[in-house]
């Protein structure tokens, strides 16, 4: 933080963010989760697919802190590896949605007219399908797997970003400094990339953070319905689905993977809310 100029926007944002205890907590949880995902092979006591049928349905113990599942696989190890899947899907799906939705929204907002109409009516149609249903259909069309799950969740989140960016662009495009840039002969692409997008980054970053939570949730939901990551790869939602046949006797099989999803979503919500308050005090509710 010493390296930043004292009155720069980023510095002020970070200072404000640090005052928000919940946001700091969220940031820490996400950092821990990120490290867990990166160092999963070192941290996990067992491999995620190691089966040991003799040890199936073991309740939590020292050897298996969170117990074992129906195949005798260590639940803690599977949750640790599952962090890789959830974070990847969350981050990449939102990046995809942000990039493609952002470009479409920027074009629609900047050029207006028929182009705006066509793009936004298409987005309206996508909006009329509940996101989870859209993601389910795309996931079915693409087939199972990490990459396809990411694309499905990303496309389902795309219209939101298109709308946000379009709105933000519209609020800026009429201002004098844009006109000035145009008078100086700047190209449209330059104006959008250099002058417009940086000035509407706040709502995009805030939505991005909150949307990662939604993407992780959607990915877990798809796997829960059997349309996302396929076993034996560990995905928290998939693990939850796998536990459903054993709820009566082995409740811990369901409790821990669900807890992992819940904590992740909560941390991202804290962080997103904190960022919203810190980046733009006007947005504070």
């Amino acid at each position, binding site marked *: 933080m010493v390296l930043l100029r004292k009155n720069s926007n980023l510095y002020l944002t970070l200072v404000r963010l640090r005052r928000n205890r919940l946001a700091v907590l969220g940031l820490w949880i996400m950092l821990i989760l990120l490290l867990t995902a990166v160092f999963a092979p070192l941290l996990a006591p067992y491999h995620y697919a190691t089966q040991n049928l003799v040890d199936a349905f073991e309740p939590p113990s020292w050897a298996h802190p969170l117990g074992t599942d129906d195949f005798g696989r260590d639940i803690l190890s599977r949750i640790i590896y599952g962090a890789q899947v959830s974070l990847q899907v969350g981050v990449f799906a939102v990046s995809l949605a942000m990039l493609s939705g952002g470009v479409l929204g920027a074009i629609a907002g900047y050029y207006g007219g028929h182009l705006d109409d066509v793009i936004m009516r298409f987005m309206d149609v996508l909006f*009329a399908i509940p996101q989870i*249903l859209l993601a389910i259909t795309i996931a079915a069309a693409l087939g199972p797997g990490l990459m396809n799950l990411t694309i499905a969740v990303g496309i389902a989140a795309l219209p939101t970003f298109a709308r946000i960016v379009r709105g933000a662009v519209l609020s800026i495009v009429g201002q004098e400094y844009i006109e000035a840039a145009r008078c100086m002969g700047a190209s449209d692409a330059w104006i959008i990339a250099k002058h417009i997008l940086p000035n509407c980054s706040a709502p995009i970053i805030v939505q991005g953070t909150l949307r990662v939570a939604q993407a992780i949730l959607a990915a877990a939901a798809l796997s829960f319905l059997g349309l996302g990551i396929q076993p034996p790869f560990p995905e928290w939602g998939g693990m939850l689905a796998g536990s459903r046949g054993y*709820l009566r006797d082995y*409740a811990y099989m369901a409790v821990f993977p669900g807890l992992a999803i819940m904590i992740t979503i909560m941390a991202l919500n804290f962080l997103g809310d904190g960022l919203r308050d810190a980046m733009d005090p006007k947005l504070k509710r």
Partner: protein
Amino acid sequence: MIPVALGVTFILFSLLSVTPGDPARLALGEDASEESLNEFRREYGLDRSFLVRYGFFVYNAAVNQDIGRSYVTRRPVAGEMANTFPVTLNLAFGAITFATVLGMTFGIICAIKQYSIFDNVTMVIAMLGISTPIFYLGILFILWFSVRLRWLPSSGFDTLSQRILPWITLSAPSMSIITRMTRSSMLEVIRSDYIRTARAKGQKESVVILKHALQNALIPIVTIIGIQFGLLLGGSILTESVFSIPGVGRLAVEGIKSRDYPIVQGAVLYIAIAYVFINLFVDLLYAWIDPRLRTRYRY
């Protein structure tokens, strides 16, 4: 409405037409003869190009009110929808009623007693409610209320006792958001001068809160409720799956798994139309709540 229906079905048609898997094979089984497979494809138009099929679909829907027949059960999709859609609507209406009544009540109390224990505890629970996936919450409810306490059944949707858990499960995220929104919206209004005036003229506190304050805090709350209602229709897919409820959502998921495209199209079409109607209803509600909007649109 009609453009939305056309758009939604077109997107679905394109998505489903690139979905791998042969519907004829899946509907007739592995040992079906090539002849019967071809017969099936001809009967359902699967041998035609996707644009032709889409054209026929739109024509039949518009002229004959026929949106196709299921590949698997061979029954008309409209009939299947008539069986399952009311269940989903019941689920969603029950959930939004729970969410609205409880959410607004909690929100109002939190705003009146800001920073009290009740306020703090409610806000923590609301944060948990927003962060818990409904399918996890449903499983936790089953674990606690069905397996442990044996109070309520864990599946089905016929009797009232079967409906309570799904309603509450589906309503939880919306209830949390409505509580937070009501609280912040009420807090903004409650400090205005006219509220002080109302109190100063000796108005009863209940009238001040429920009439003067709430009526003016209502617009953002109604917006959120409308958005949440739309989300509930999507969330009902997961709730139906957790509690084995025979609704449209579960039908759609099963339809996707068995490549029963007409069913998927019908289900999504119904949900999308319901979605559009809800948005329309919310817009009408604004005018009813806010007289200023009413006068603006009177010509």
